[in-house]
């Protein structure tokens, strides 16, 4: 019986229009992915890890997967000992793809049914010799959904410039998330883009501890090109910039809404505890801080920093309640506070914490610029810890009152911290506010967006609670392992991550995307500005959705 008759008899499903056949499934498993033998016509060099493929099953199901590895195989090991001569192009050409062939490792992720509908996680795999095709734009669009207010276009899959990968922002802010990558891989750009999406969608307020002044006002890249900050993108008051360093903000011509000063009288030992490692405070000295706070009252730091030692301190030493050496060490280490002008005994103005909480609760996102203090990690940790502890406690209180019907639910809040491993180090994560927020998920409507280049230094338990991970290039094995902790089938994605470009590429996996995706992040420029400020052509978006629908389902 000729093949054509067999096709008629067996009812081979028609191939997706325009899709390029790549090969057939020759092995694999649900847990470890599928091995695909490439067709002789498929140019191995034309493929890349991170690309999407669709596997046509026997039951009209399509399995949507990602290329996670490429390798070379041969039907006989002897072939490697008898390669064609260098000038024998004919033998090389015919052996390539037959006796010697390319293999593609595919991690199947989702199942697309012939009836349409939402893609579902796979629970089975296609049989041997199922045909593997390059995923069409329509299929990728089907997986990543249409762009709308809460689905933010963050970039395009590799080699599919016309396809939009849309991040589900509602799910992004629902749990803590992370942006990871080596230094210089574009973490800040991606974070700024994500925050812009969240602000535009109005799904949560953001409190950004802006260590390097990257988010509030304009920044320049290495080439000198200027990019708008969040405050410039949202000129309607949806973003406030508060500065710790008004002088630097002035020099940068950054428009700020207020200056933040913190009263030394409001600092509690718990605010300082996180700095123990940086300040070199021993466990005994940390314990002494609590003792001093209890004995000296709200002015404990003021008294410790006073030029003339107070009688109260002398009494404590004399009574041998506190070793003179311990006290002296604490005082020496607290000298740091003198070098931070935003820490004042009696700052003027209203309570900064209350004001920030009010802004956040009204839907205004707050970017706290650190100015030149961003280079002082102690300042960054102290302020972030100080504010977060207080704002979180207000959220807890508001949430509890809302549960009792006495108040409205507080507006969801995303707290953005950089150098996150300093806050979430395994030695401190268990008892810092950041560890608590990461672990309690969205219980109190507060989540974290951690930005870090050393995810391996973040507590494992906290990492496991990071719902969405946006990862730029990482090459440290421990960091790669950390990013994939708690992710099933992560082994296959490691190769993908290790081979990202150094700029503008990221692997996104987790809660906010239906499947792991490598994106060429979109250009942070005029087109994005226009879209964020509502100037983008809505008609064009509708037309694109209509084209996708027609491609998938016909007229």
């Amino acid at each position, binding site marked *: 019986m*000729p*093949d*054509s*008759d067999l*096709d008629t008899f067996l009812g081979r499903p028609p191939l997706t229009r325009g899709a390029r056949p790549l090969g057939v499934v020759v092995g694999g498993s649900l847990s470890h992915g599928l091995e695909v033998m490439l067709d*002789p016509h498929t140019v191995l060099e034309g493929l890349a890890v991170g690309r999407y493929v669709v596997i046509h099953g026997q039951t009209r199901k399509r399995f949507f997967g990602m290329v996670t590895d490429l390798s070379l195989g041969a*039907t*006989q090991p*002897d*072939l490697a000992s*008898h390669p*064609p*001569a260098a000038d*024998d*192009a*004919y*033998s090389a*050409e*015919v*052996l390539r*793809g*037959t*006796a010697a062939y390319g293999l593609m490792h595919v991690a199947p992720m989702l199942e697309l049914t012939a009836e349409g509908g939402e893609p579902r996680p796979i629970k089975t795999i296609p049989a041997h010799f199922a045909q593997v095709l390059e995923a069409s734009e329509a299929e990728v669009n089907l997986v990543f959904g249409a762009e709308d207010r809460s689905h933010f276009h963050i970039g395009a899959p590799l080699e599919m410039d016309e396809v939009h990968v849309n991040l589900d922002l509602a799910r992004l802010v629902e749990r803590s998330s992370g942006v990871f990558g080596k230094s210089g891989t574009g973490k800040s750009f991606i974070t700024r883009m994500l925050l812009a999406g969240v602000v535009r969608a109005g799904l949560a307020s953001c409190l950004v501890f802006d260590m390097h002044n990257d988010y509030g006002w304009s920044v320049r890249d290495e080439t000198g090109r200027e990019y708008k900050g969040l405050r410039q993108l949202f000129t309607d008051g949806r973003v406030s910039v508060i500065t710790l360093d008004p002088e630097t903000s002035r020099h940068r011509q950054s428009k700020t809404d207020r200056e933040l000063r913190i009263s030394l009288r409001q600092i509690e030992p718990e605010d300082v505890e996180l700095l123990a490692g940086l300040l070199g405070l021993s466990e005994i000295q940390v314990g002494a801080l609590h003792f001093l706070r209890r004995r000296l009252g709200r002015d404990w730091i003021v008294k410790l920093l006073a030029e003339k030692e107070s009688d109260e301190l002398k009494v404590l030493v004399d009574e041998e309640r506190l070793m003179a050496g311990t006290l002296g060490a604490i005082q020496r280490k607290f000298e740091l506070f003198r070098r931070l002008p935003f820490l004042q005994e009696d700052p003027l103005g209203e309570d900064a914490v209350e004001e920030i909480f009010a802004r956040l609760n009204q839907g205004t996102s707050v970017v706290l610029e650190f100015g030149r203090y961003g280079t002082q990690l102690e300042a960054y940790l102290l302020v972030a810890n100080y504010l977060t502890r207080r704002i979180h406690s207000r959220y807890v209180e508001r949430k509890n009152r809302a549960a009792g019907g006495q108040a409205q639910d507080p507006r969801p809040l995303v707290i953005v911290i950089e150098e996150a491993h300093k806050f979430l180090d395994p030695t401190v994560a268990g008892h810092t506010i950041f560890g608590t927020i990461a672990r309690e998920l969205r219980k109190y409507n507060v989540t974290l967006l951690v930005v870090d280049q050393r995810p391996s230094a973040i507590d494992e338990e906290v990492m496991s609670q990071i719902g969405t991970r946006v990862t730029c290039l990482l090459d440290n094995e421990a960091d790669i392992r950390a990013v994939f902790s708690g992710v099933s089938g992560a082994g296959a994605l490691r190769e993908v991550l290790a081979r990202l470009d150094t700029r503008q590429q990221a692997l996104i996996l987790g809660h906010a995307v239906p499947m792991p995706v490598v994106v060429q992040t979109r250009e942070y420029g005029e087109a994005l500005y226009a879209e964020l400020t509502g100037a983008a052509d809505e008609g064009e978006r509708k037309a694109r959705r209509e084209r996708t629908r027609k491609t998938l389902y016909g007229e």
Partner: protein
Amino acid sequence: MSPKPKPASPLVGRVLRANVTEFTLGCRAQGGQLPAFGSLVRVAADRVADPQAVEIIGVVADLRLEDDPFVRQLVSAEVSDEYINDQRNRRQVPIEVRVIHAGYFDARAAAWHALPPRPPLALEQIFACTGDEVRRFCAPGGPGERSRKLGFLALLIEAQASDALLGAVLAHIAQAFEGEARVEFAREAGRELARLLSADVLRLTRLLPQIGHTLSGAAGRA
């Protein structure tokens, strides 16, 4: 449906003996009129027994000139060239040509690369295949099928065809195509052989360069 005589196809001989995998034809012709090693020939099938198998296609796998006592005498005798030519053309012992079955055409003129259901009848006429017949024999099978039919290679390998025969038959078939089609045929045929002989790496790596060389020679001759 009976095959129409094709004037362009020269008659090469008649069937002497046959089985399902091959037949032997006998002919008188010598020199330029003999079918070439590796060329394709066709013979009408037993239409009474197999109405669907209309024409069997075979590959010339060997040509054998048997001697007889008279020829032995002539070898050692001193005779004129005219006498020799006369004996060559009129001798009683025919030249035997071994043909391996490569497939057949059915009543709808569709090519099948499989053994014919029955061998041809004794004394059936055998014709050399024309370029058009060769192309039809290797043409893609049906709608949606892109590759040429190359199943005859499996039959030849199963019939213990030598490397030389495989090279010769591919060179003959390649000559039926022109330009890019010939290059594409060479590529597809090579890949088919690579698949069929993938377990015999030594033979494959010896055979492919020969075929490549033969096919480039065929291209040069065309």
